[in-house]
């Protein structure tokens, strides 16, 4: 990590983690109205920002730190879900970024969909039932819609973040 100054980097990461946590709280306040674990995945916006503007190490540490927070507030299963989804989706986004020159929407959609897929696999392991995987079609479509939404938000927010010269 060759940041201009290390303390600036630490402050930025702290802020990003704060934003992630706030987004996930707001999201969880909204989620109970939706069936089958359909979620917006708003904190993926921050992870994508970290992947694009910082480096993969920062993105992965944000994911891990967020799941620690989820463990403290919502318990072990929710934390495992968060970690499984976060790590896998960040990995997929990273691989796409390195290899296929994707557009922003493809990154956010693949992030959201892979997040859903890994959480689905994780819940199938917990429930010991492969029938849990029947949620896949709905989570695929909802993941795409959520990914398009987060991609649009990131697109809208990025110019302002460039101006603030955060990184």
């Amino acid at each position, binding site marked *: *990590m*060759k*940041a201009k100054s290390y303390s600036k980097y630490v402050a930025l990461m702290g802020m990003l983690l704060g934003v992630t946590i706030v987004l996930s709280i707001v999201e969880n306040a909204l*989620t*109970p*109205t*939706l*069936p*089958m*674990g359909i979620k917006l995945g708003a904190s993926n916006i921050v992870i994508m920002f970290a*992947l*694009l*503007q*910082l*480096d993969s190490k920062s993105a992965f540490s944000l994911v891990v730190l967020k799941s620690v927070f989820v463990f403290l507030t*919502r318990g072990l*299963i*929710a934390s495992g879900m968060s970690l499984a989804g976060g790590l896998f989706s960040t990995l997929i986004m990273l691989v796409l*970024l390195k290899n296929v020159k*994707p*557009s*922003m*929407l*493809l*990154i956010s*959609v693949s992030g959201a*969909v892979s997040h859903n897929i890994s959480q689905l696999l994780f*819940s199938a392991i*917990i*429930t*010991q*039932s*492969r*029938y*849990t995987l*029947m*949620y*896949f*079609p*709905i989570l*695929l*479509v909802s993941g*795409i819609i959520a990914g*398009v939404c987060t*991609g649009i938000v990131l*697109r809208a927010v990025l110019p302002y973040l460039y101006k603030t010269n955060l*990184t």
Partner: protein
Amino acid sequence: MNNIKLPFLKMRDAIIIIALILIGTVLIILPLINTTNSLCEINFDGQIIKTIDLSKAEDTIFTLDEVHDVTFEIKNHEIKIKSSNCTDKICENTGYIHSPMQVIVCLPNKLVIKIIANDNDVDLIVG
């Protein structure tokens, strides 16, 4: 320090996304067309604890010994979780299910309710 600037959308990526949406929609709609008489299986921790023939079941509200904090409701040959002690309430919000390939999952209670077709031999072994 990366500083990657991506285009917002490429034609190739738009086609991929639209294709994925179409595949997902087809996968959602297909099971709903098939409404044969169906069996309902309630699984707890990977074990089948109750099987109900939904086409003959009368409207009831019941609980099970293994998961006594969860209330099930059968109405018009459809089943749903009426109330549960879990925190996320995903299972309650899933609502009624009736056709094969539909499931209700309550992760905190390790509970899976699934519908299986009665008239053809779908395998009943649950991993």
